[in-house]
């Protein structure tokens, strides 16, 4: 790597570079679309480049799917559906167990690949993304032959062809969340990974090959939003699943209106992380950090609004600033790196513009002393204090390492402020008082609530939003419903 990890000047510790080897992953110069079990070029021969966000190095060139390719992929999925859905659930289960195992076997390779293509730290891909990906396949594998007992009636039927569009923040994990339940229930899929992170989905195609998955059951088409729109609108798609921005989610909801397509949407958020005066401050600080700086804050359920009880504001902010000064930003492949690169130039521009707006609107901006690498897309961890509910940084999803700090005096005020958003995906509560946790959790209008912890995920735990954060749940028994004709 060109850039050595930047150590925070004045920090207590100096670290020697500890880069994970990228020799474990072999990225081809180009990739085609994975349709009907084979890699093929786009019909019109178009390609686009995918770069490493931390260095801007071109990693590979991938095919850009057009409408004709979407059509071909849907046809392949349709053709495969008859046999796949007729397989005994126990056989489908074994394919999924195989996939889970191959992912475990190749997890280091995939972690390095994901870090290269996405820019997130290897510590996260290695310790969070990949274990969760394998666990998700393992979990849904077990459902495939037990659907009669899932609470959706006897012999629930699959929907058919699922068109799935996923974002760039957790490329392989979002793929797992989409494909595992779809296949377990007997659907076939056409999945479009995000334009800036196509590689892990293409590697997943190879995992399907190794697992012996019948051709056409999983099809991967790479491309930009136009390919996603064509997939969503395709008349032979029975199910649409999307994770991404609320604006695109609304457009998709309009597209499928008046059809019989089943729709689930996992969209944006502006999660409140509420810290009461009796909270264990050190743990709360760790939770705040993982809430907004995990994955550079590019997390739909990020705790991007810190609501802190007025009496402990100064103490908490001091601790938080001290902690942020120890975060290490730099080479995502370095095992000591906490903060990696922003995924794309476009996203960096958006974060930059919103943070500038926060400053222009009068909020107080703070970042730890932090040297940014000279190439790649980087944004220092940033705090805004003196934020009111009217500030843009308190209302808009920034999807970056930017935390807005607001205060409250009473639990009722905390709840009112937490709920004062069109979103409703996540929230956090920090207090030592059990009854207060339950009372506040009860009143928060959000789909996932973490008490005295944050950003925990598990395949058995349903995930999804209230209000404009979307509808439907992924994970757990609940996640089956999205792919069953019930």
């Amino acid at each position, binding site marked *: 790597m060109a850039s050595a990890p930047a150590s925070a000047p004045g920090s207590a510790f100096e670290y020697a570079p500890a880069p994970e080897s990228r020799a474990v992953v072999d990225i081809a110069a180009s990739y085609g679309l994975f349709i009907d079990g084979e890699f093929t070029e786009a019909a019109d021969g178009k390609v686009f480049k995918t770069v490493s966000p931390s260095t801007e190095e071109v990693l590979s060139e991938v095919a850009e799917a057009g409408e004709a390719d979407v059509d071909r992929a849907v046809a392949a999925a349709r053709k495969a559906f008859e046999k796949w859905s007729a397989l005994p659930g126990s056989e489908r289960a074994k394919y999924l167990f195989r996939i889970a195992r191959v992912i475990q076997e190749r997890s280091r390779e995939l972690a390095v690949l994901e870090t290269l293509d996405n820019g997130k730290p290897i510590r996260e891909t290695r310790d969070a993304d990949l274990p969760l990906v394998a*666990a998700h396949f393992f979990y849904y594998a077990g459902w495939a032959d037990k659907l009669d007992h899932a*609470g959706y*009636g006897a012999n629930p039927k699959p929907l058919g062809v699922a068109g799935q569009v996923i974002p760039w923040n957790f490329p392989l994990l979002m793929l797992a969340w989409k494909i595992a339940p779809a296949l377990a229930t007997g659907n076939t899929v056409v999945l479009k990974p995000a334009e800036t992170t196509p590689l892990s989905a293409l590697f997943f195609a190879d995992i399907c090959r190794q697992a012996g998955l019948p051709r056409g059951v999983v099809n991967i088409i790479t491309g930009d939003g136009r390919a996603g729109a064509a997939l969503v609108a395709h008349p032979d798609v029975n199910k649409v699943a999307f994770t991404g921005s*609320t604006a695109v*989610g*609304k*457009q998709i*909801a*309009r597209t499928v*209106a*008046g059809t*019989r397509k089943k729709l689930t*949407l996992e*969209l944006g958020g502006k999660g409140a992380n509420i810290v009461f005066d009796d909270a*264990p401050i050190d*743990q709360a600080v760790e939770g705040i950090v993982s809430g907004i700086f995990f994955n550079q804050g590019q997390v739909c359920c990020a705790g991007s609004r810190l609501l802190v009880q007025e009496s402990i504001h100064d103490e908490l902010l001091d601790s938080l600033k001290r902690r942020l000064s120890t975060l290490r930003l730099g080479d995502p492949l370095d095992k000591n790196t906490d903060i990696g690169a922003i995924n794309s130039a476009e996203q960096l521009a958006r974060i930059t513009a919103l943070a500038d707006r926060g400053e222009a609107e009068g909020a107080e901006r703070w970042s730890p002393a932090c040297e940014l690498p000279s190439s790649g897309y980087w944004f220092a961890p940033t705090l805004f204090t003196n934020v009111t509910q009217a500030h843009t940084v308190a209302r808009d999803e920034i999807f970056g390492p930017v935390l807005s700090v607001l205060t409250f005096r009473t639990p009722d005020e905390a709840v009112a402020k937490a709920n004062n958003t*069109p979103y409703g995906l996540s929230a956090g509560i920090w207090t030592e008082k059990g009854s207060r*946790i339950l009372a506040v*959790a009860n009143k928060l209008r*959000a*789909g*996932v*609530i*973490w*008490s*005295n*912890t944050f950003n*925990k995920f*598990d395949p*058995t*735990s*349903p*995930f*999804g939003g*209230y*209000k*404009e954060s*979307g*509808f439907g*749940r992924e994970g*757990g028994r*609940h996640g089956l419903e999205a792919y069953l004709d*019930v």
Partner: protein
Amino acid sequence: MSDQNRLSVFKTYKLYVGGKFPRSESGRVYEVTDAKGKWLANAPLSSRKDARDAVVAARKAFGGWSGATAYNRGQILYRIAEMLEGRRDQYVAEVADAEGLSKSKAGLQVDAAIDRWVWYAGWTDKIAQVVGGGNPVAGPFFNLSSPEPTGVVAVLAPQESSFLGLVSVVAPVIATGNTAVVVASEKAPLPALSLSEVLATSDLPGGVVNILSGRTAEIAAPLASHQDVNAIDLAGADETLAKELEIAAADNLKRVLRPQPVDGGGWSTTPGTDRMTAFLETKTVWHPTGALGASGSSY
């Protein structure tokens, strides 16, 4: 003097909004006739403003109703069945007129509607156990998923089944703690408007159910695009209207229940849980379980 010589007292049919019985703010009415075209009443022709007022009432009622115990909601739904049973003859007559049914066939409809309230009354404190529960996450956490009501639900009642159909779509919405703005069957709104007399005397808090009569398309449009409505049941919309409303509903990502095929007996079969789960959110809460040992609590 025989009864035939006594001039009967007509009822002025009014809307039901926020627990009160207002006329349409527009001052408009429309003529409602029976199946043979005979005049029955002038029903309020609700305006967009009436729809918005009803949303305000439903929102205001949501906190209390969703926060009530499930047991309490069950008691109130059962009370609705009791009140209906006592006024059975009135509803049989209204349903017979509205749908052109014989008294005996209308009686079956009303009986089934009463029984439907009883069915949903029993669901209020069971649905959470059926669709929620603990999740065995791989870590030291107690993780619990619970259903919660979506919020304010706009309900377009079925056009053909003026009473049983109406009850079949309203009861599941409120059983779980949602509040409702109901658009009655356009050509047969009177049984729905009369239902409000029972709702108002069953301890159901005002605003939990609001009932509007008028042109379905006219009232539904502002409800589908309303930013403070969380969901919409399109049972009473035809294909064209349903598509328009679903598009409008996308603006704030309302949960949309598309028109469903109605069973052959016209809402007569025992419903499943689908009409409840369509308007439920799943909330999942993670609690650290800590670890008790030499090192003490670990969270």
